């Protein structure tokens, strides 16, 4: 399911990242790779803040929808 479906505080493992190529690469470089664990810290109407590899990353809905966990 897409990352946007996770509730605050829930953990997911990344299965696939789709969407716009450049953003996908940027996410890859930030540590969003298949198998990595993400924790949702905050969510505002689809926009999410997640914890990944010890850092916090804000992702808007557009992109979060395309990260499958």
């Amino acid at each position, binding site marked *: 399911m897409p990352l946007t479906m996770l509730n605050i505080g829930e953990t997911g493992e990344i299965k696939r990242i789709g969407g716009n190529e*450049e953003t996908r690469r940027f996410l890859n*470089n930030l540590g969003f790779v298949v198998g990595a664990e993400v924790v949702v810290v*905050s969510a505002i109407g689809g*926009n999410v*803040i997640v*914890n990944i590899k010890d850092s916090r990353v*804000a992702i808007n809905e557009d992109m979060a929808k395309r990260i499958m966990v």
Partner: protein
Amino acid sequence: MNIKFALAGNPNCGKTTMFNALTGANQYVGNWPGVTVEKKEGKVKGNKEDNITVVDLPGIYSLSPYTLEEVVSRDFLLNEDPDVIIDLVDATNIERNLYLTTQLIETGVPVVIALNMADLIEKRGLKIDTKRLSMVLGCPIIETSALKGTGLKELIAEAVKVAKQGEHQLPQSIFSEKIEKAIDTVVPALSETITANKKRWYAVKVLENDEKVMNHIVLSSQNKTTIDSLRKELETELDDDMESIITDGRYTYIQKLISTTVEKPKEKLTMSDKIDKIVTNRFLGIPIFLAVMFVVYYISVTTIGTFVTDWTNDVFVVAIQDAVSGFLGSVGASSLLTAVIVDGIIGGVGAVIGFAPQMAILFLFLSILEDCGYMVRIAFVMDRVFRYFGLSGKSFIPLLIGSGCGIPAIMASKTIEQDNDRRLTIMTATFIPCGAKLPVIALLGGVMAGKVAGWKAAGFIAPAMYFVGIAAVLVAAIMLKKTKPFSGKPAPFVMELPEYHIPSAKTVLLHVWERLKGFLIKAGTILVVACIVIWFLSTFGFEGGSFGMVEDTANSLIAAIGDFIAPIFAPLGFGNWQSVASSLTGFSAKEAIVSTMGVLANVAGDPEDAVNVAAGVAKWFPTGMAALSFLIFNLLDSPCLAAISTMASELNDRKWFWFAIVFQNVYAYCISLMVYQIGSLVLYGTFGFWTVVAFIVLAFMLFMLFRPDPYKDQKTYSLRSVEA
């Protein structure tokens, strides 16, 4: 010996803090990713033997060619041959930081790792086996804390040693066997002009099919076919594209490496997570932001602000004026000289300097907000609002910086990927009141309060102007986004959020001082010149048929110039030459509006008596609405010359530049017209030709705002360009 170090590392890991500590420079640091957009050079202080240059590179997550920062850093590392790369690794986020390290090592330039924020290792309950880490990575690791200044000497000593060694280990293999084999196949195919130490980097990039590298190097067509089929084979086998395979390979390697070298405590919600839960809450996020900014501006111009400013204006400046004129009189200076110094320079510059305490307080608040990490959250919270209007939250960062000064704000728009969104942001960033506009707001706020009997709420004007600025940006954005040149979907918003920290007093005070110093220098240079020019123009003129000093300022040169232009501004409520002249001088620097008003009020006033500038200014505005309209016009029109030239260089296109200038001024004119005419109709019941015009403008704007977006269905992202 001449040695060149490059400081590289992830965004917001402390490179610029380190750079400042090493070189004694005062480069701008902020607690959000992407503060440094361009590289900066400095000399290491306190090292007599060698001549060491340090280059501070923009923060990057990788050496791919997708963002401006990456291209700048990558080109420097590969083409300018630094002797050593000092790789800053944030100890609290080691896994992600080492991802870049693996790429830096590949470039063939010797790497020295500065394990930064080492002071937090113990606090966080982390255990890092630096010896083993250093051995496996094949480069020395020094523990540092750039903020506290520890470990810097050792770092430089180690880096110098490495630079002088000349020889160093070639980058080693880190990927799975299959990929390494592929790399080994590519290496011999590379041209001989690529030195042995750089071969691995180019081989990986060729395998990844990196566009910039492929355009840059020459491969025989036979080799190219071999490599292409090799790539395809791997991609089919591993069911992914080559770049993702390499990325994944690096992270797999790092995970293995840190599992044996780093011990992390059990994860729990950190303080930052808890704060984020509240300030980025879907309902509370925006109200909290509005409240914070309201308090910041309100306090800056009221409580401590006015108390100090009233004192400086009424007591201090007047005392100086009296003392100086007494002194000049006693030494027998001519009355002309006395007038230019007392009325011109002290009257004008003094009017501005009086607001320095308010600016200092505003800068103090803004620095604290920036440094603690709150501001970047706002970009995230506002992304939802901005996206609704067709902009990305990234466009909000320049607006935040713009509350300090418009020039860095315009420069910060560089990080916005899309060309049309970047142009839009450059054009609108200066709508946000910068520090220099604060004196204008405070002075006019006082004037307005004086117009409305019993109204003591002048302090509300400053926060109100801040929100007017943001609203003006949004309104302009909505209108422009519905036109073809600005249409297009905003880029997805992905941004790392820094951890909150208690701002360091040193950083904050340094910020405040740097900004205040800039303001004082301006006051001592541009404003002095502006004041002398204005004093001359307002004292001399044609009276009784001959040129000379005039009795009545209404006959002065500036009055003649102002009167000529004034009719244009009559519909806005300030069609008198004094306000027009002040607005014009505002293009040299926005504070000059206040200094010009100071000069004009002083010259016009009774020479025997000290003058209260605000009282003098109040005479020029018939109503509070007129003062408000004047303030809004000067808030939204083109910024000062320094900012205009920054706009020109960032837009880098004549056509766009002139469009921006025309747009800003026409927009400011329209908004002021509506505010004055409709406001006067409501408050005082005045109705005339211009009221009708104002309603027509309003109708047009509403149409532009609410018409269906003809480009709504455009799914594609708009154009972007990354050039170094």
